[in-house]
């Protein structure tokens, strides 16, 4: 047995409604059938009572002999017709002797059990009703009356009986029809409950879908309009999401502050070391470099952790490429780098603005370092919810065997190149975090082609 608290609400409601409906319908069915049966028997008994009354009233005594009246009921004359009567003489010893009988009885008798005789004895002059067996073992309904006739010594029992099969059949048919009707009713009620529950719980299902969308990063909060019972829950959920976001944001800021706070002391160490050349300076320089890489690495880790909480963001690509192109041309002003970029205006990256800037910025900066003067960047949608960012330069490019190396953390292909040389490894790390990939290749412009496969936000 499952834990009841885990049972589905729908099933729980439908189950309760079903059990209750079944119970009520069952009681109603039994009650109705019993009512019908007793009404039918009452009607039947009345017609039998008329017959016994006729027998009683019409019987005469001639010379100590009892004579039954001539009855016109044709059914009592045909053999085994189903309608019978008999007049019994009850001797003082208690033995019953038929005095007169209907012709329909032919060669059989209707016998009363001693219990039935006792009932007749207890209430002389009053009609009593019994169930009994008749000829051919048919079930009979009988009415009998014990009376004394003037001029006749023994008490006499007038008994009329009729085959009760028709009323039993009627009652059974009625029970069958009632059962069908009530089953339909019960089914209808349960179905109505199912519909009611489903419809009634729709907002709950909608809320569940919205929460799922938030978790998958398709939405940032629960936005729908809800009935007053659910509204507080939606409000609480949003508050929780906001709180979560805030905590993540705070942690991120803390890590960021720590990382940035470490960089100034590192600068001091590097500068101090550079002013006193020697072994110490070399060690300090190397260690400072390692520390810097560590700091950057953990800074990115913190950002990635924050990202997994909120991936619902969408970032338009075009303005970022524009900003980066202007900035990078400024950075490489002395070299005279020209950045030609293309991007559809409605293209959106599925993720954070800062991350996309970091990705595109590092790839384009790397191109800027190596190019002879021209960079081409192109962002375009590709396939289902994906986009490609392709950056080409006209520099020396990378031989295929060095390309894999270029993406590894802390690898510097050229110690003389300005900057940390970490650019592409950062790009690789970030791209992976977004479920994308980096492909290094040969550019038609002669240099390196870097192609990022990234998630695209649907427009």
């Amino acid at each position, binding site marked *: 047995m499952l834990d009841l608290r885990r049972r589905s609400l729908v099933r729980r409601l439908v189950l309760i409604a079903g059990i209750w409906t079944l119970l009520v319908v069952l009681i109603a069915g039994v009650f109705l059938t019993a009512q019908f049966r007793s009404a039918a028997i009452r009607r039947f008994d009345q017609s039998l009572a008329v017959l016994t009354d006729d027998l009683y009233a019409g019987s005469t005594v001639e010379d100590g002999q009892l004579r039954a009246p001539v009855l016109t009921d044709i059914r009592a004359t045909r053999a085994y017709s189903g309608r019978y009567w008999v007049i019994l003489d009850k001797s003082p010893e208690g033995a019953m002797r038929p005095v007169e009988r209907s012709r329909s009885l032919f060669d059989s008798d209707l016998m009363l059990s001693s219990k039935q005789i006792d009932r007749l004895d207890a209430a002389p002059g009053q009609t009593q009703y019994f169930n009994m067996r008749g000829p051919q073992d048919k079930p009979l309904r009988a009415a009998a009356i014990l009376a004394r006739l003037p001029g006749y010594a023994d008490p006499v029992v007038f008994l009329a009986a009729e085959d009760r099969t028709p009323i039993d059949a009627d009652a059974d048919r009625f029970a069958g029809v009632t059962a069908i009707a009530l089953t339909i009713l019960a089914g209808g009620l349960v179905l109505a409950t199912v519909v009611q529950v489903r419809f009634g719980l729709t907002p709950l299902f909608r809320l569940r879908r919205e929460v799922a969308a938030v978790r998958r990063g398709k939405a940032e909060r629960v936005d729908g309009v809800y009935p007053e019972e659910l509204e507080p829950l939606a409000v609480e959920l949003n508050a929780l999401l906001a709180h979560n976001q805030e905590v993540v944001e705070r942690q991120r800021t803390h890590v960021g502050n720590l990382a940035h*706070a470490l*960089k100034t002391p590192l600068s001091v*160490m590097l500068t101090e070391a550079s002013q006193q050349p020697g072994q110490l300076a070399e060690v300090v320089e190397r260690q400072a470099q390692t520390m810097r890489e560590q700091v950057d690495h953990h800074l990115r880790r913190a950002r990635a952790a924050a990202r997994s909480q909120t991936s619902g963001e969408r970032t338009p690509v075009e303005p970022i490429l*524009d900003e980066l192109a*202007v*900035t990078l041309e400024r950075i490489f002003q002395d070299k005279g780098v020209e950045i030609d970029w293309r991007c559809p205006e409605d293209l959106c990256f599925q993720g954070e603005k800062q991350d996309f800037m970091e990705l595109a910025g590092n790839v384009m900066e790397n191109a800027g370092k190596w190019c002879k003067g021209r960079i081409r960047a192109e962002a375009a949608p590709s396939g289902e919810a994906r986009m490609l960012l392709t950056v080409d330069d006209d520099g020396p490019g990378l031989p295929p065997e060095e390309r894999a190396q270029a993406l590894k953390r802390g690898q510097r292909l050229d110690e003389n190149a300005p900057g940390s040389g970490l650019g592409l490894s950062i790009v690789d790390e970030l791209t992976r975090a977004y479920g994308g990939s980096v492909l290094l290749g040969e550019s038609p412009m002669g240099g390196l082609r870097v192609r990022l496969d990234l998630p695209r936000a649907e427009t």
Partner: protein
Amino acid sequence: MRILLVEDDPDLSRQLKLTLGDAGYAVDHAPDGEEAQFLGETEPYDAVILDLGLPKVDGVSVLERWRRGNVATPVLILTARGAWSDKVAGFDAGADDYLAKPFHTEELLARLRALLRRSAGHAAPSLSCGALRLDPRAARASVNGEPLRLTSLEYRLLHYMMMHQGRVIGRTELVEHLYDQDFDRDSNTIEVFIGRLRKKLGADRIETVRGLGYRLAPLPGEEAA
């Protein structure tokens, strides 16, 4: 050469003062944003080395105030914040170069030399078209004194159109002046760049003459140069 060093860390400040002094620069030091802003507005420096995380007023705000107050001194930002969003924000505020901490002293000196070399020899005749101005020496353009952020290709296109303002210029002519070699002359290249320029300059400055090309003209009410 007079340099303003804005840095709140005392050790780094001392080292940089020494290094810059050894390299032959006269160095003033401001440990916070307020003092930096005051010095930058009052003293004629040749260049500024500006930290972003400063007490009292942060570096980006100081830079923005200088630029709004027409202080054109070249500024090199020296900061622990090395993310691209920070760099873009720095350049947007009006920085001329950007160096992330930790750095090598030699690199700082090299950047500083380049900065000073670039800023030397301003005063070149500038082009104008209504409220639009273009300074060929600094390769900067502005509308109503607000600097425009243009990439070099956009700048080159604007420069050509300003030299030939009032005249209808065909697409082929424009594309030939945009690219020095026959490189990527796809049919809608010019449309893309004209679209971007319109976004940055305002939509009505560049007129499309159907079938012929484009024309740059002053807005009605502005005076042609």
